[in-house]
Each structure stands twice: as structure tokens, then as C-alpha cells.
């Protein structure tokens, strides 16, 4: 792989991705492609959630499109998107030099640590829908959060055997920083004149409309029920990843319902509990399959 970038010119959006791929591939990570189910964060990818469980060592890196329906701003907010990209790294068990590796990856992207103030600020990570938590930090660059660094302690309600190091880079933010751009839509996407807005602005407008105005909430509720039913049926058959696909779907449908504002406070807790139960069931059958295999 060659990365085309003049030394004086900041990396384009896609160059940053290619650089990170190159960097983490050299650390022995398998470079995966995005998972083909809609999800709220890269953590939901089975390469993180399921693989964090069990005794087998594992190293992976991938880009994951992440959907946060309620963060839609019709393309009018320079910083918020309902669809954005996370770069996700998982290394199990966590290496002793995890922090140094992360800092070296920033060097590779072109953040000069002699000029920029990089800090690890307390931020405990918890995903109620995944029954997962870990301790770690927000990584700050000159006061801006550019990543989330976590040592996994529990996933799917199950304490992990080997704590993983998980790093989530917010790619748009990082690119905006590297390029010195204040509006996400002005990001240089490819170094050949295509901007982030050229690629995504229209979609942001249309999906915002879907998320807040158009999505048929009766259908969404029905789909949620269906995903839940199917997940439970697949759990009974011990097919962990197909069952987990349905869990991710349920989670995204819940996020959509939430964005449409049709979930009351008490219902909210109940929906989260239902998704968590699915995640736990999937984690359990995944783990039983791992130890048997």
C-alpha cells in the first residue's frame, strides 16, 4: 500500500484511514471491512463485542460507519452528523505499550507531539445496551476529544478473561484537526478535490428527515419485536453471530424510535433492558462455542 501525501500538505480523509490501516496492520492486526449491519458505534461490530470474550488472543482494526439518528442536524451543524466513521482497534490481551502505540499512530497521521498537547482525561466507558463497561480515557488533542481509549472489563454482562485494549478514533474530528478545517463538510476527502460534503451532505439532509420526521414508528416497533423474536430463536439454535446480528438490529431500531421521540422515560429503560438481554444471550452462546471449539 502506498500513501500519497506531500509532506507539507495535511492528509486527506481517506489518507488518514489508509495510514491507520498501515499502522495497525504492522502491529499484527487483521484489517477488517465495515460490518454490514447498521450500528451506533464500532464497538458493536462482532469483531469487538464477541471477540472480546473468551481466552483467544485477537487483534483487529477496521472502519465502521456509525449511526446516531438523534445527532442528525440536516447538514446544518458543522460538527454533528447522524452518520459518521469510527476507526476501531481492538488488541486482546491489552499490550503494555498500548498508550505508546496510540501516540505513535497520531505521529503517523501527522500530529506533531512537540507542538500539540495530548492528554489522557478520565472517562469511564459504559454501554448499557451491550451490558459492557471498561475504564480508560478520552484522548485530548489541544482540548479536543480525538478518541476514546478503553480497557474492557465486562461485555454482555460477562467479565472478560483477558482485558482488551480498545481504541476508537472519531475520524471526522481527527481529520478536521489535521486539516485545520472548521466545518466537517469542507474536509478534503481524497486529496483530489472531493470534499466530505460532496460525498455525504445530501445523505445527511435526507436521513435527518427520515430520523426525525418520516420513519414510520409503527413499522419500527414491529421490526424491533421481530428482531427480538428472531434473536431469541437463533440463540436457542446456538448460532451466535447470526443471533447477534438481530441484537444489533434491535439496538439500531431502538435508536431510531428514540430519535422520533416516541419513547417515554420508563419505556426507554425497558427497551435498553431488552436489548441488553439479547446481547447477554448472544455473548453466552458465543462463549460456550469458543470454549468447546
Amino acid at each position, binding site marked *: 500500500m502506498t500513501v500519497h501525501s506531500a509532506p507539507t500538505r495535511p492528509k486527506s480523509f481517506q489518507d488518514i484511514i489508509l495510514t491507520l490501516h498501515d499502522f495497525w496492520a504492522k502491529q499484527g492486526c487483521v484489517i477488517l471491512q465495515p460490518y454490514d449491519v447498521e450500528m451506533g458505534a464500532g464497538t458493536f461490530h462482532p469483531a469487538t463485542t464477541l471477540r472480546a470474550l473468551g481466552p483467544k488472543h485477537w487483534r483487529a482494526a477496521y472502519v465502521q460507519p456509525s449511526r446516531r439518528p438523534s445527532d442528525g442536524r440536516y447538514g446544518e*451543524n*458543522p*460538527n*454533528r452528523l447522524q452518520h459518521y466513521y469510527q476507526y476501531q482497534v481492538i488488541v*486482546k*490481551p*491489552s*499490550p*503494555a505499550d498500548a*498508550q505508546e502505540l496510540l*501516540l505513535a499512530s497520531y505521529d503517523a497521521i501527522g500530529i506533531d*507531539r*512537540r*507542538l*500539540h*498537547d*495530548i*492528554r*489522557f*482525561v*478520565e472517562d*469511564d466507558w459504559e454501554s448499557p445496551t451491550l451490558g459492557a463497561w*471498561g*475504564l480508560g*480515557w478520552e484522548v485530548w*488533542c*489541544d*482540548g*479536543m476529544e480525538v478518541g476514546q481509549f478503553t*480497557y474492557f*472489563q465486562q461485555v454482555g454482562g460477562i467479565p472478560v478473561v*483477558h*482485558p482488551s*485494549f480498545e481504541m476508537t478514533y472519531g475520524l471526522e474530528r481527527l481529520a478536521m*484537526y489535521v486539516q485545520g478545517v*472548521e466545518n466537517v463538510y469542507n474536509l478534503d476527502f481524497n486529496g483530489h478535490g472531493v470534499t466530505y460534503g460532496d460525498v455525504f451532505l445530501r445523505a445527511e439532509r435526507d436521513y435527518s428527515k427520515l430520523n426525525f420526521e418520516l420513519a414510520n414508528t409503527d413499522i419500527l416497533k414491529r421490526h424491533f419485536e421481530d428482531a427480538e423474536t428472531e434473536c431469541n430463536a437463533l440463540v436457542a439454535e446456538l448460532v451466535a453471530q447470526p443471533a447477534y446480528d438481530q441484537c444489533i438490529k434491535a439496538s439500531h431500531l431502538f435508536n431510531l424510535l428514540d430519535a422520533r421521540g416516541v419513547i*417515554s*422515560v*420508563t419505556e426507554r429503560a425497558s427497551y435498553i433492558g431488552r436489548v441488553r438481554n439479547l446481547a447477554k444471550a448472544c455473548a453466552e452462546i458465543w462463549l460456550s462455542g469458543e470454549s468447546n471449539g
Partner: protein
Amino acid sequence: MAEFFLEIFSEEIPARMQASGAAHLEGICAQVLKPLGFKLGALYYGPRRIALKAELAGEVAASAVAERGPRTSAPEQALAGFLRKHGAAREDLTQEGDFWVLNKQSPAQPAAAFIQSALPEALAKLPWPKSMRWGASGDFTWVRPLRGIISLLDGAVVPLQLGPVTSGNETWGHRVHGPGPFAVSSAAVWEEKLREHGVIADPVERREKIATGMAALAAAQTLSVAPDEGLLDEVTGLVEWPVPLLGRIDDDFMDLPPEVRELSMKINQKYFALRDADGRPAPHFAFVANLAAEDDGRAIIAGNERVLRARLADARHFWDLDLKTPLEDLLPKLEKITFHAKIGTQHQRAERISKLAGDIAALLQLDATAQQQARTAGLLAKADLVTGMVGEFPELQGIMGGYYATRSHGAVVGGAISTHYQPKGPSDAVPTDAIAIAVALADKLDTLIRFFAEGEKPTGSGDPYALRRAALGVIRIILENGLRLNLKPLLNNDSSLFDFIIERLRIKLRGEGKRFDILDAVLYGPSGNTTIDQLRIISEQYQRNAFADDDLVRLIKWVEALTVMLGTEDGKNLLAGYKRAANILRIESEKDQKLYSGDPDLNLMTEEAEKRLYLHVNAVMAKTKEELWNENYESVVIELASIRPYIDAFFEKVTVNAPEPELRRNRLRLLARFVGAVQQVADFTKIEG
């Protein structure tokens, strides 16, 4: 003496846990190393390390224990317990008669060996608020991954094992300025070399450097830093090599409410707000970098300014959006928000607060317009809970409602909403505007009434709805504004709630070093037309507080006047005379099964001292009648204290239990009159001393 130095080096420790982590380190070492005469020299903490240096004796002195243990016939567990207590084995025991006797000789133990055997187990239990496992740690947990330990006794490594880490003499410096590792031989060398490697180890020095550095930068622009000790502590824990810097806030954002700007700066970014020479918010912020950058921080400042722009742009988005919707239009949304499952929605709450605020405004004798303003403010007080800004910054609830209402309903209603959560803590101010007072009181009273009605009262340890704070808020608003209100009707005459508030008042007085026993005394005093004896009889059948005064301002006036009186010689003696009289009355009343409440007869007074007491008490009662009405309590207590020589003379000269029944009854009636005069003011039996 030997120098012991211990550094525990890890990945970044959350700022709020560093000082307590170091304190626990000291506590553990002080306890475990007590046999070595542990004496702390210095304690250090920072983003990646906690450390201490101490003086220790060179060895644990030899010791001999000779102690009689359990009987030889005692159960095995008793003997096992005895051995465990002394760390002894069966072989150390001898038998003397029916008893086991321990004779244990412990030879002197070198300090290093003792540290090595005793310290690691205790250190592993250092209580972090949250701790974790990592890749190499197995079951060992620490606040974040542990990376190194230095353990030196007079420069020599004392090998310690904590989880996966073995101690040595190396540590690491600042990630950019001097990563290391490098070796050290003493605490002084450690501190010195860390400085060379870009780390100031002493938290006090870092804090000072930040504070003076920011102040100097601000002063150069004729500005000053808004004091924030908590934030200063936090940023001290975020940097190893503090470099204070100043950034600019775009003028476009200076018309946002300062609370919005400064909360975003503080919570999200750990920035300090600045003030101009007149104390107004200045378009600058101060912050601390962890890097002496080659460009003097230009890129860091530019980056931080950019982040703040994005943050404030988001705040402006919510501000503009919120201003498009009148607060009234948000009320239906409150119907969907449950305040508490048993108490109902925020909308129902708002309606109750509205009505109560209007009622309180009427009680405070405000005019019809003002009463309506209080009702409006009460109704809209919770509407900002569904605004975008409060959704983003919950800490701004009330404040935002105040800004929005000021625009739509004027400064009076807006101000009342803005302050209706006050006082939020002991150091927070109370509202002073009459309408704001009505709304703030209504908010707290409604919470107290509803939770008490549902039986959700605070327990010893738990007060999830902050009812104690609400009660204290009610007390402070009433007292600090001198509001003359009868509290009980405002509490729906809930006697347990009244007791709860009086209890908070008692605790408040105690906290202020005032005499809360006097509060108990006046509580059942001045309001009563009842005598002590009547009260005592009746109180067994009824709630005591049915008789208690519920005008807090009057209660406190009394407490203050009586505190002054009881500080004088006359006051103390009057109290003694009163207690003696009340005691005699109680004993004689019980003996005779009757109360001595009739008028004493001057003609039946044979002694000069009883006549003079009678006449003086009558004179005092006549004089104090009007002064009591006017609440001129200082004069009342001076009058009362003037009885002192008369009651003293009475007890000196007069035999109460005279052989003649009429004389005895008359003297008891006189004592009852005296007691009645004094207890117009308070139930002095409750006062100590």
C-alpha cells in the same frame, strides 16, 4: 534513621482520585511500617504517580512475648485464635498448670526484610474508587495499569511485587520532554531528575505555578481569573509540566448568557473564565497545557480556541432554537415527564407550585399583580427542563428558564424562575425579591409535602430526593428574609414534616455554634397559653408540636434574646430559681393530684420575701405584656432577669411546705405565678445548666 522512598507509577490516574490515593498510600505505610517508627517526610501525587518519602528505623527491634493463653481444656478454636493473634506456632507454647503460656522471642529484623514481607499485601488493597484488570494483571487490580515501582531504602532497592510489577530504581518522565526511563537513588534525586525530565512531582508547586502563571497572563491584559479552587485542583491533576496559556473567545459568543459560556468552558474544557477590571466577563479564557511547545503554544492556543468555538456554536444553536418556542408552549411536554412515580408528572408539579406561590405571595401581602406574577413564574419554573440547552447542560436548569422568561415575561418573572432552586447549598445565596421568595419557597414546600405524604422520608443514610436540603432552604429563605409566616398551614399541617424542619433548624443552629437547647425551650414556650404542667399532661395524648410556635423568625428572636440573658449572672441564677420552683411544683402537684393555678392571695403572705416576690412578678408581667406583643424580647428578658434577687430571697427566707394548708397552697400558687411569668418566654426545663 534510614530514608524510605516509594513511587508507584501507572498510566493516567483520574485527577479526582490522585490526592486520596496518595493519602491512602501514606495511611497504609504508616500502619504497616509502624514497627519501624514510620515518620512521613513528603507525599507526592500527579497524573501518573503517587509517591512518598519517610524516615524509618534500621530494624524492627527484637521482642519477647510472654503471655498466658487459654486453658488447656479450652476448645481447639480458642487456642487457634490465640496463636493467630500473636502470629505464633504451637511450638512456641508451654504448659503451666492448666494454661497454655506463650513464650515467643522475635529476633530483630532488618527494615528491608520487614518492608518486603509486610508491605506488598497491604499496598495491593489500596482502595481506589474504581479499579481494573489489564492484559498482564491476572486478578490483580489497580486504578489504571500499573507500570513501575520504585522502592528504595537508603538508596538500595527493596524488592516488592505488586501484581505483575517488580520494584526497582527506575521511573519515567514527561512523555515528550523526557520519557526516560532513568534510575534514581533517593527521594531528592528522584524529584530533581523528574524536573529535568519535564515533571514537577510536588502537587503544591504545580498548583502554585498554574495559579500564578494564569494570574500573570491575565494581568498583562488588565484582566483577572475568576477564582475556582475546585477547577484548579482538577487541572493540577491533569498536567505534569504545567504551562498556563490564554485564549480568546470570539466576540460573536459574548452575547450568550455568561453561565452558558462558562459552564461549557469549565465542564467540557477545564478552562478558567476571566473578568475585566469592572468584574464583567472578558472575551478570554485561561487554561493549562502539559507541554512547553516549540512555538510557545501558538498551535495549542489555536486548537483550544477552535474547540471552544465549536462548543459555543453548539450552545448558540440551542439558545437560538429555544428562543423560538415560548415557555408556555413547552408545558404540554411536561405532562409526559414523570417527576416521581407516586407523585406524578412535572406538569402537575408545576401547577401545584404555581398555586402555592400565589398563596404565599398573598400571605406576604403582595398585591394582585405580584400574586399573578408569582403564579406565572411558578407555572413556568420547570418548563426549561425540556429546552435544548438544559438537555445539553442540566446544571443550567432554572438559569435558562430565567433567561427565556425574562425575554417573554419580564425581569421579575424571569428572576423568580432563575433563583427558584436557590439556595442549592449552604454557601449559596437565598432569593431576596418577594416574588422570587414565593416561588422558591413553593418549589421546596411542594417537594417536602408530596414526598412526606407518600412516606418517602429520608432515612439515616439515604436522602435521595434531597429533602434535607429542601428543608434547610425553607428555613434559610424564611430567616434570612425575616418572613413572618405560620409554617404549619404551609405544610398542610403535616406534623412529622414540621418536626423534620425543626430538626434541620436545630442542626443548623448547632452547626453555627448556637445553643439549640434554647430552641427546644422556646419552641414550646411563648406561643403557649398553656402552663408547663398542662402541657406535660396534654402532650401524652396529642402531638407535642400542636403547641409549638411555627413562626421561625419569632423563634430565632427568642433564641437570641435568651442566649444573651443566659450569658448573664442574673440569667443563670434566674434559671436555677426557675428550675427549683418548677421542681417543687411538679412534686407537690403529683403528690396532691392537683394543679396550683389559682391567684395567690396577698393577705395570706406572712413573709416579706413572698410579698415582694409576688408584687415584683406582677409588675414584670404587666410590663412585659406589651413588650411581648411588640416582640421586644431584649426588654422582656431584662425584666425577667430582674426577678432573680426576689426568687433567691424567697427560697432563702420562706418555707414553701408550711404546716398551715392555706399558707402552703398560697405559696405554691405564688411559685406557679412565677413559673408562669418565666415560661411566657420558654420552657426553661429544656435548657441545660
